[in-house]
């Protein structure tokens, strides 16, 4: 049994400072191993995004431990969490979250700004990633000139640029029609095929089934897993 890349132990998340605080996650246990493709489902408000934000180190749990790549990241400083997001995590958002005034290439380079390696020496790397998502002919376009599917592919390219440990996707096809959604999912499939670890939130049963493992969250608890 290989060491899990993600290991959540008794994770609780409360929102608010004053009682009654909102108890959203009520003791989550979850292990994810290297190379797994996990989908997370659940009703609206069940805490899926909350969980994903914790996994992405955008937030810290109120209680419990989170080991990422064997390292405890549940109580780190803001700067340290930023560094972990930069190096170990790739985000794919429902609404793409590209920076409008930057070109496609520049958007993909943004994570490099905040890391060790320089943009110049990674220029080729960025171009080849964009090539692999099929956008090598759109490098100097701005997001407003692209279709939704293309935007999401730019976002996927951006999530890969620092070669992260895990990819986190919050309803990546939520803003896309079913055809372009399919294309994006195929891209995720192929990333999984390359050995990437992916955790994806979705509302769509069919989409969820593309993952090897489905996790269902209900009322702040993991209630069902199928593999």
């Amino acid at each position, binding site marked *: 049994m290989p060491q899990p890349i993600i290991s959540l132990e008794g994770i609780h998340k409360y929102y608010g400072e004053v009682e009654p605080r909102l108890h959203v996650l009520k003791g989550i246990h979850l292990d994810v191993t290297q190379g797994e493709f996990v989908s997370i489902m659940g009703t609206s408000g069940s805490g899926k995004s909350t969980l994903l934000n914790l996994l992405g180190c955008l937030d810290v749990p109120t209680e419990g431990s989170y080991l990422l790549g064997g390292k405890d990241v549940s109580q780190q400083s*803001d700067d340290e969490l*930023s560094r972990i997001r930069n190096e170990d995590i790739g985000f794919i958002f429902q609404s793409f*979250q590209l920076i409008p*005034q930057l070109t496609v290439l520049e958007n993909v380079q943004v*994570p490099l*700004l905040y890391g060790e390696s320089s943009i110049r020496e990674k220029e080729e790397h960025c171009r080849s990633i964009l090539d692999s998502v099929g956008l090598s002919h759109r490098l100097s376009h701005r997001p407003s000139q692209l279709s939704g599917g293309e935007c999401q592919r730019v976002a996927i390219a951006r999530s890969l640029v620092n070669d992260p440990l895990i990819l986190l996707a919050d309803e990546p096809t939520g803003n896309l029609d079913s055809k372009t959604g399919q294309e994006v999912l195929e891209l995720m499939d192929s990333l999984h095929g390359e050995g990437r670890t992916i955790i994806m939130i979705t509302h769509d049963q069919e989409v969820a089934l593309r993952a090897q493992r489905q996790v269902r969250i209900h009322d702040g608890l993991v209630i069902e897993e199928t593999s």
Partner: protein
Amino acid sequence: MISRKKKELLRMGLQSLLGYPMRTVLTMLGVVFGVGSVIAMLALGAGAEKELLQEIGRLGIQNIIINSVEPEQPENNSSSSSSRRGWINYYGLKFKDHRQIVETIPGIERVLPVHLSKKKAWNGSRWIESTLFAVEPDYFEVFGLEIASGRALSPQDEEDLARVCVVRSGLLQELGIYEDPVGYVLTIEDQKFTIVGVLSEDRFQGYAQKALVADARSSEIYVPYQTVLKRQGTRSFSGSAGSWEATDVELNQIVVEVEDLDQVILTSRTIENLLSRNHPEKDYEMIVPLEVLAQRRKTQQVFNIALVAIASISLLVGGIGIANIMLATVTERTREIGVRRALGAQKRHIIAQFLTETTTISILGGVLGIFLGFALVQILVIFTGWTAVITPISILVALTISVAVGITSGIYPARRAAALDPISALRHQ
């Protein structure tokens, strides 16, 4: 390596500015006008100071100038006023004063006596009311009066009691002398004087004009001191049919040149003591260019500070403008900030990004403002004739202020941006 990283961050910051060119330019305007007016005000201040320095410097800062002044006449002046001897108006500096200064005041380079008299100068049938300056040859050097053509008066002229004179070019025009004036003969009262030199005009301005007792009509004629004293004496008559009045002023001016600049003020006090003993009526005035310079300079500096302070208000407004627009920008770009934070930007990166933007705006604005300042100064100089000097220091001051404005106006918006919670920033619409 670290500096390359900084360069990349800088470039990224600038890209945002290029992304909103119109807003960037509008934001800049406040600083452009602020810096422009600061530059212009500093230039005007420096110009005024330069003018002052030149004007008073003309009098020679090592000189002390004493002029005779006619004392105020009491209402009932016909009887026993001591300044009047019969019908002669007798006042002012005396030969005795000159002699005592020469003999008792230490540390003096030269003491020059000057006697003035009003005379009609004739060229054929044209005439002009002129002032005859009886001066020693050194007079020209002490006041730095330059000879445009011909020569100055010489010691030989003094010895010979020569009837020669040095004039100002304005006088030549008034008398209609257009050919080469050197060698030309003027009739002054009933005597013929040969013009030997013409002065250049640039010294007769403003304050210097007053102190040199020159008038605006440039009708001064300089003649050897001894010639006047020996041939004419110091008494002069004026008046019209029936009622005559005589004035006797032995010396209209005494110019003292002090050896050591540090001793000028002290020497002036000593002379003042001496003169006040000789002249209880105070029928003289003392002008110490050095003292006047110091006073006027002080006034000028206060004025300069006020000017710059006023100009700085527009800079302040410019800074507030930047801060204001940046705050709006932070709100507008909340999602971008959230994205950058999610992708690994630390708080300091966000702060650096916004400070880069505000500083760039203000430096660019500062540079444009310097150009605007140059233009303003040109325009002012053309339309007002004032002197203005743009000093390197003022440019440095303007740039420094721009950077400071950029940083201070950026710091609050930048900190607000950095303090945003990444998750809610990402959700921001």
